């Protein structure tokens, strides 16, 4: 029962944060509401007894990436005049809501047609640091390494792109 209550709280907060990200005018408000979404997602992972993913979600997304984004928003020092005029905002939001509606209905239908599973907590070591680590570095080593090379490539690419602009000026 307690877990159900927590699930409802986290799910509501996650959705509200995402809605806030889209609707808030000031980027700082948007970023902070997105932080709320990320933290509630971490809470959902914890409810699914995925401890490691819970910690990583907090460290990587909520802790590192979002603090960099907030840092950049602060760095740019955006004034109200800098923000674009959005007179048709309500109209756009309504139209896009209507356009997205069928997809939402489809998703709802898919969720409804899922077979009913009990959501009992998995075996007592499931999702722990050691278990995920063994799975990742023993059974899924090659995909893991390929993904990390992909990340490395994009990192080097970003450095080169940033460096080029500096030298041409």
């Amino acid at each position, binding site marked *: 029962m307690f877990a159900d209550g927590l699930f409802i709280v986290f799910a509501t907060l996650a959705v509200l944060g995402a809605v806030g990200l889209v609707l808030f005018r*000031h980027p700082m408000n948007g970023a902070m509401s997105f*932080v709320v979404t990320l933290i509630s997602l971490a809470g959902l992972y914890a409810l699914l007894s995925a401890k490691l993913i819970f*910690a990583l979600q*907090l*460290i990587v997304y909520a802790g590192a990436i979002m603090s960099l984004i907030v840092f950049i928003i602060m760095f740019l020092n955006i004034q109200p005049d800098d923000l674009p005029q959005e007179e048709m905002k309500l109209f756009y939001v309504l139209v896009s809501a209507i356009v997205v509606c069928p997809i939402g209905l489809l998703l709802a239908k898919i969720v409804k047609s899922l077979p009913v599973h009990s959501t009992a907590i998995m075996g007592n070591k499931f999702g722990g640091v050691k278990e995920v680590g063994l799975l990742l570095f023993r059974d899924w080593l090659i995909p893991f390494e390929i993904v990390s090379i992909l990340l490395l490539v994009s990192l080097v690419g970003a450095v080169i792109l940033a460096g080029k602009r500096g030298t041409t000026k």
Partner: protein
Amino acid sequence: MSQLDILLLVLRVAFGAFVPLCFIAVLVWMERRGAAFFQDRSGPNRAHIFGFRAGGLVQNFADAVKLITKEDIIPGHIKHKFYFVLAPVIVFCIALISFAAVPFADALIINGKKYIMQAIPTDLGILWFLALAGFAVYGIILAGWSSHNKYGVLGGLRAAAQVISYEIPMGFAIISALVVYGTVNLTEIAQYQGHLLFGFIPMWGVVVQPLGAIIFIIAAFAEANRTPFDLAEGESELVAGFHVEYSSMKFGMFFMGEYVAMFTSSAIIVTLYFGGYQIPWFSTETLVHNARAFSVLLMLLLPACAWLFARWMAKNNRSHYDRPNDPRVWEAQIYAKILWGTVAALEIVLFIYLITVSGGVADRILVALLQIVTFLVKTTFMCFIYVWVRWTLPRFRYDQLQKLGWQTLLPLSLLNIFVTSAIVVALS
């Protein structure tokens, strides 16, 4: 849940919440008297209640009254009042919660059931600390940004850039420590440090990971925004940095948050590199098996220490000029009476323990209490090092700070990971 479960749960959470709060008072006192000590003066020692100065601790009480009763101003130019109020709350709460995963005694075994002595009995351990350390920067960024003040924004920018860049060497130092310990669970890490290296050196992290320990301690200083890394509030150039617009208890929250963060990071340093709650050379099992001998030793040591302390107090707690009926001598006498009363009470408790309940559960509880005391003593020493560094080293220049982080600590910590992994692989 049995009643014992609930009692231990309440005790552990209370310890995790109240000990950092109590340490605010101790650390503020230590900072002031420590600063005075390093600068060869006395420090605040005059504030008193009915003549009792408690070595200057009463000054903190006066400060608390001042901060609480000051007018709480939110400057009119601030547009995002919500973030302005939220920022100190984040800084304070995050610092407090990160202590929750630190073990303050070895797992207590009562009636065959194991109780992990952490406020939150999670095995995430150091990951919990890392996750929350990332959040602390939000408080500083939001404070600097919502203050809408050039000094505030500059302070916030500096703090954020510094915390983000020092998190990397800190994470690498933790990785190399984890390679040695083979676990992220802080209780297991502390248990590992109870072993002996070559049979006579305590296998503390600082012995097996000296470079990692230095890198981690430097990075922890930077994360706590303490001198020599306190450019965020460098008063000579930025007035007070990110908290320049804050007054009253909102400033108080930043102030207390700084000391809670200092306590928490000292606790983490002690747990990772200085054996945590382990008493050197005496593992938990040794202590439990020889609990009676230790309690007899304790009964002999306590009066000796109290006698030395009382003599030191009587010698130092007196006026430096002739005064009829010196109130300070009288004060010291009262303290000595309280001290001897406490010692007598402890002796009685230990005596009752010896003749009635020794053996079994009581031994384990006694050992847990001893370990809690050890942990707090170690953490206090680490906090003293924070104070020591603050009043000894001058502040870095900002480019020097970033250079140290990226060009010295980062390569060193990477090297440390490779060397450590090579040794661990070679030995296994």
